């Protein structure tokens, strides 16, 4: 199981939890598992999120590996100038 931290405004869509646990070995699997466990998160994830794994922000790559001890934080999607 991987623990995923949600930003505050997402928590109400995941039973009010700051962190939720899901199964997954890649960013893509974790996002799929989140939607499955908490369907209310789907529109947010669909409209774009970034995922920080151990401090590195993953912008697009769904295949990025995630370990069971990784720190995983969901962030609003980032772009730059």
């Amino acid at each position, binding site marked *: 199981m991987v623990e995923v931290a949600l*930003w505050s405004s997402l928590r109400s869509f995941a039973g009010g939890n700051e962190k939720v646990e899901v199964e997954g070995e890649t960013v893509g699997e974790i996002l799929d598992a989140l939607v499955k466990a908490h369907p209310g998160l789907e529109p947010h994830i669909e409209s774009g999120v970034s995922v920080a794994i151990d401090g590195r922000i993953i912008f697009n790559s769904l295949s*990025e590996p995630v370990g069971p001890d990784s720190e995983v934080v969901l962030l609003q999607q*980032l772009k730059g100038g």
Partner: protein
Amino acid sequence: MALDGSKSEFKLVGTRPLRPDGIDKVTGRAKFGADAYAAGMLHGAIVRSPHAHAKIVKIDTTKAEAMKGVKAVVTRADFIDGLKGEMWNVLENVMAGDKALYDGHAVAAVCATSTLAARDAAKAIEVTYEILPHVTDVDKAMAKDAPVIREGAAAPGTPEGMHPNVVGYHESGHGDVDKGFAEADLVIEETFRTEATHQGYIEPHACLATMGNDGKGEVWCCTQGHFHVAKVCAALLGTDASQIRVTASEIGGGFGGKTAVFIEPVALALAKKANRPVKVVMSRSEVFRATGPTSSTSMDVKIGMKKDGTITAASGVFRLQGGAFPGAPASFTAMCAFAPYALENVKQIGWDVMSNRPKQAAYRAPGSPMAAFAVESVIDDLCKGLDLDPIDVRLKNASRQGTKASYGVTFDRIGLVETLEEAKAHPHYSAPLAEGAGRGISCGFWFNHGGETAVSLALAEDGTVSLSVGTPDIGGSRASMGQMAAEELGIPYEKIRTTIADTATLGYNEISHGSRVTYASGLATIEAARDTIRKLCARAAAKWKIDPEAVVWEDGCAKPSGPNAGEFEPMTLAKIASSMGRTGGPIVGHYEATPEGAGVSFATHIVDAEVDRETGSTRVTRYTVIQDAGKAIHPSYVEGQFQGGAAQGIGWALNEEYIYGEDGRLQNAGFLDYRIPVASDLPMIDTVIVEVPNPGHPYGVRGVGETSICPPLAAIANAVSNAVGIRMTELPISPPRILAALDGAK
């Protein structure tokens, strides 16, 4: 792809070779967006709404179509129906549908045989408007009775019961801020405002397009992302992305503003209708009225501090107006605000708000500079209130490796402390200050970005190299790509020609944005070179009839890896290349990935400013930029990014602003009254490159383009506030504002 520990000695990286496009650019030969011409070319002109908010009742093109030389007119009806989400927003912005949403919104376009004929025809297109109430201020746009820009545009997660103009909400943080504020010896809360500023690139948007009725199109344009242009044009015209080939011209500045698409789909639509090439070039006033400025903001920041300088809690509410569409970078503003500091209790809220202004576009670290202005101002006031040194306080609270950042992640290796220590030791910080002058410092933060990247590296038979990258060169990146390729291959820099490949000849590349080019295209270049080397080694191994694993690449040659591998004369790259047709065919190295190791970046700026207390005029007299570059590939262009960001920040802080009249029209749509810094406004800008390697890049590169604009707003506000003894809370800190503050304080 992680930091390559073995690579610590560099031959070319860190040197300052001449840029490969240099001679073209000093002789006038370089071809920018507006410099392309085609046989039979027509000129386009765009009709724009003079109203901030109006229903488009009727567009009568008959007079224009009857004029001499006019070949085609397009309106929204010439674009595809049924788009959803952000693509619909882009189309609506490129060509208005039912309503004109801001002064300058495109409503029709025409092409004719000359620019004068096209402009005259545009004037002859009669548009009937029904004027609607408008709003351009962020706080007023959130108010209950504000005119509605559009219903139903709010993103998921936006709290219910808000005005329809409120289209996005972000909340994040950790700890208990109320508890933290209770522990503080001093708590300061202040409201700040910043006006919208424009990226102000000197080259207006320009493109040349052709499109046949077979759906195949060609576009030449100045853009930060030509693959993105192809994608958007295909979507808006209802054709396939692969059928639109886009070539990126030389680009005359972007700073985020050329990540958006404005005229290319219009030029294609005109070209298709007229069946001739069409060139569209924006005027400067069109650039200001219709392309993306940054958001204007209204922000409340509250910070608590103990007598020893420890920050006990910080909270902020950041309201950003992003024009007539969702997308203001409110979440970035919120997430960047407190990122430089290790805080136990922090909470940040961002609001994305629509108004009757042009759709905001990214501008260098979108959202971050405004946050720094508010936060770093309050920190300075706390230092003053508790009689503490501003650098010591920042050092005490600085984020480090292992800090749980305000926006949730745990920082890896970062260089904020190093920039602060350099700042403290810098002669500027201890230099005596002139009478009546003030000194200000500020820190700044930006995430940086990786993104989809493809690079191809082909050898010629004479041993020279053609390097194709897909990220438009907005500030000298062809030089640094050449350096990295040459470093890996072990050949002279001059033997490499780096080209920005068009969309038909390379895999998809994300836009040149997010300070990603030297990081991501650089990483891909290194990997493409290493792929090439593997192929070169394999050819040598085949020739020597040894295992490819037994061949190493050193100093531009394939060599046996050791005595056990056998004794062979090293083979140079040129030697292998000369026979490649007979040893297995062309040698091309390539690399495609979405590198995700962009290291975050921090900077600390020091600035001295003098204020004329009788006129409110401010002069910046000394400026020092200290920033972590991870590893500077070409130090001159790293310094250039530092200096350019500082200069833009100085303009933003002191003079630049979007000024709207009561009628909702932009009053300063030109360089005369949109006042970017001129040469005589600025001092030399000193730079210190700090190199704390990014663990996510083979050489340790961090992007440098954006972070440099994060601290200046706050640093200058702190300097001016110190000079006049009054906290300035609104940007720009213009002379009338300073005089009014001084008079108010009397």
